[in-house]
């Protein structure tokens, strides 16, 4: 009971608080928050929004899992942002330049993406293990470099080609596509959304049912205790960072193999940072993350309706930012509150025990 309250109360508080804050912002800017919220909810039933939300949830879910693996052992992989971008470019170039039978082609692209993501994460991991470089700083720098490398790789004299106003990598042949589930007017569900679900199950099994998962969580709870228990800290850092990078590499796969079939200038950025927020919201738990990803996707896609009622849709970004900040504050406040009540309880019991003696 207490545990459930400790886990569910803070996110609920945070969402209510941010909704109130954004409502206040809307009132101050002369809009009607109820009408805006109504428009967002109605939007879910419109056209392909519902399917878009599911697709987007899958993508956010993968990104958040990548972050969560690092978080489990207090490792901040801020670099998911760069890892998924590099993986997307490399995989798109690879997929567009080889000819393989159907099935094997898409599998090869997915593997290349995972390897590229892991390779990009390997640099900060190796720097941390061998030189003690803080992973936050190095992954931030790697994010910047990833932007540059991606821009360079799609130059027309390197791998890119010009299509209309857009520069893109060569299109992946149809043998490499992963077909979606067409739902008529409601859009098409990405086939690789199921990859997200599989990853979530795999993540849960790894964390709770394998030795590696146990050692990972132990390192996060107390690095010194884990080391005393025979856990090789350096190996854990290296493996978890590579795993995190490999999963990050898969983030863009649903879109690239399911819809775009190429990496182009309109490639969506910022998913890695959203992943950080979602992992925090979901407390690294696979179900919690799923809920967070769904919330994020709902805010993103339904927010498009806000323009129709005269509200700038950027209010949604503010809401997301407020949710992250308030959820971590709420977790901390609830934790302190429970600590204090625990102390009072123990104090009472000791006093009554002392009185009896």
């Amino acid at each position, binding site marked *: 009971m207490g545990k459930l309250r400790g886990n569910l109360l803070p996110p609920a508080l945070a969402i209510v608080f941010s909704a109130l804050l954004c409502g206040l912002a809307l009132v101050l800017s002369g809009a009607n928050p109820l009408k805006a919220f109504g428009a967002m909810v109605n939007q879910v039933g419109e056209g392909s929004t519902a399917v878009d939300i599911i697709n987007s949830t899958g993508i956010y879910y993968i990104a958040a899992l990548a972050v969560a693996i690092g978080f489990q052992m207090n490792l901040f992989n801020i670099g998911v942002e760069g890892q998924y971008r590099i993986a997307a470019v490399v995989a798109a170039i690879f997929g567009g330049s080889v000819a393989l039978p159907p099935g094997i082609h898409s599998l090869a692209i997915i593997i290349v993406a995972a390897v590229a993501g892991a390779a990009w994460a390997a640099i900060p991991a190796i720097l941390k293990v061998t030189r003690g470089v803080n992973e936050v700083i190095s992954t931030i720098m790697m994010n910047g470099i990833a932007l*540059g*490398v991606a821009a360079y790789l799609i130059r027309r004299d390197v791998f890119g080609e010009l299509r209309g106003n857009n520069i893109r990598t060569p299109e992946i042949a149809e043998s490499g596509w992963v077909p979606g589930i067409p739902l008529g007017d409601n859009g098409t569900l990405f086939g690789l959304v199921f990859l997200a679900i599989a990853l979530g199950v795999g993540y849960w099994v790894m964390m709770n049912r394998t030795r590696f998962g146990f050692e990972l969580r132990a390192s996060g709870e107390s690095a010194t205790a884990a080391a005393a228990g025979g856990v090789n800290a350096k190996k854990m850092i290296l493996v978890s960072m590579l795993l995190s990078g490999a999963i990050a590499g898969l983030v863009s796969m649903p879109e690239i193999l399911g819809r775009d079939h190429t990496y182009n200038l309109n490639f969506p950025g910022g998913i890695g940072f959203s992943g950080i927020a979602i992992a925090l919201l979901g407390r690294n738990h696979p179900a919690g993350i799923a809920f967070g990803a769904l919330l994020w996707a709902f805010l993103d896609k339904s927010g498009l309706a806000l323009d129709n009622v005269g509200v700038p849709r950027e209010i949604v970004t503010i809401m997301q930012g407020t949710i992250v900040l308030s959820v971590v504050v709420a977790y901390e406040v609830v934790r302190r509150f429970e600590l204090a009540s625990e102390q009072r309880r123990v104090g009472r019991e000791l006093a009554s025990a002392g009185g009896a003696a």
Partner: protein
Amino acid sequence: MSVMTKPAAATPKRGRKLPGWAIGMLGVAGAIALLSTTSYLTNFPQLTSSGTTQTAVRLALPILLAGLGGLWAERAGVVNIGLEGMMIMGTWGAAWAGYQWGPWAALVSAMVFGALGGLLHAIATVTFGVNHIVSGVAINLLGAGVTKYLSTLLFFPVSHNPRESPPVPKFDTYSAAGLTDWLATLENEQRVVLSDVAGILRGLLTGVSPLTMIAILLVPASYLVLWKTRFGLRLRSCGENPWAAESLGVNVYVHKYIAVIASGALAGIGGAALVLNPGQPGYLEGQTGGRGFIGLAAMIFGNWRPGGLLGGAALFGYADGLQLRSGGETVLALLYGAVILLGVLVILQLVRRKWFAAAFGIAAAVVLYFLYYSLDEIPSELTSYAPHMVTLVVLAVASQRLRMPAADGVVYRRG
């Protein structure tokens, strides 16, 4: 006034026999010597031209200010990844006040907006003990969101573009007229060293805005406040050992709050420096382009010290300015300069009998020279990220020599 030529100041921290200013002067002299040798050998006078220097100064200012912001926060033990978000708030604040009431209002408003971001970071990290990185990431998200929302709300009706502000009036700029004319003639004579020095000086003395002067004065000011006053000592003690500081009667929370708010204000001024740059019309969405992070990089490059930070900002701004003024092939000449620098370092290491370091230096020099020899130009897509690569290299090579505040990033709770 040696904004662009102090990169070497960060490195020689070894002997401790020389006072800081002397090391700085030596660094400046060394950097000028290096640049003029390179420009002579590669035949690229643009390396030390006044135009390049002037652009470099303008591009270095936001990085410098963001870096100073990072310095204040981290010296008090609060890691500030949110600099980028605070800087974005600063750009918006500067544009909003600037297009209505002029550049001085822009400056003040940018400070206030940045400081608001800092206040938020302080509330989250100091009062609520939230992880510093998490709070920083959230502030970056929030900064981008809030400014986009406010731009659509307030700029769109005036500028008819939700991503852009109306044009913002700039500061008047000043030049030391008589002096710069004389320097111009000297620069055009193309004499070795002399013309290079003249070019750099002329770039530094031409088109100086009050903002430039304020930004550069903030470096010694930060040094004096943080290292030479009682308040600064207390502030830094919060970053080294907050428990000891508290036991000696320092109010750690208050000092951290002040430091983080100041940090936000400085990042905000950095944003103003972008908006008030004569080359820019005003606020543009995505204008900061990760400069908050580069500021952080400059601070790390400078080993959490103001002088080194100035050197880092100058180096990064210079690489950027060179790229902007004269394109990728000139930046390639910098590789040549790096080879010369490495050569000097290798000789030093050989004299000190550090064989491993010398071998490493030689290998690096060979690789760089090969790059210089085989490439025609450095792709412009990559040059913008040179600061990131330099930071990674510095971290990888010198991480043992860097010394960050001991309790940096540690969540402190009053006992």
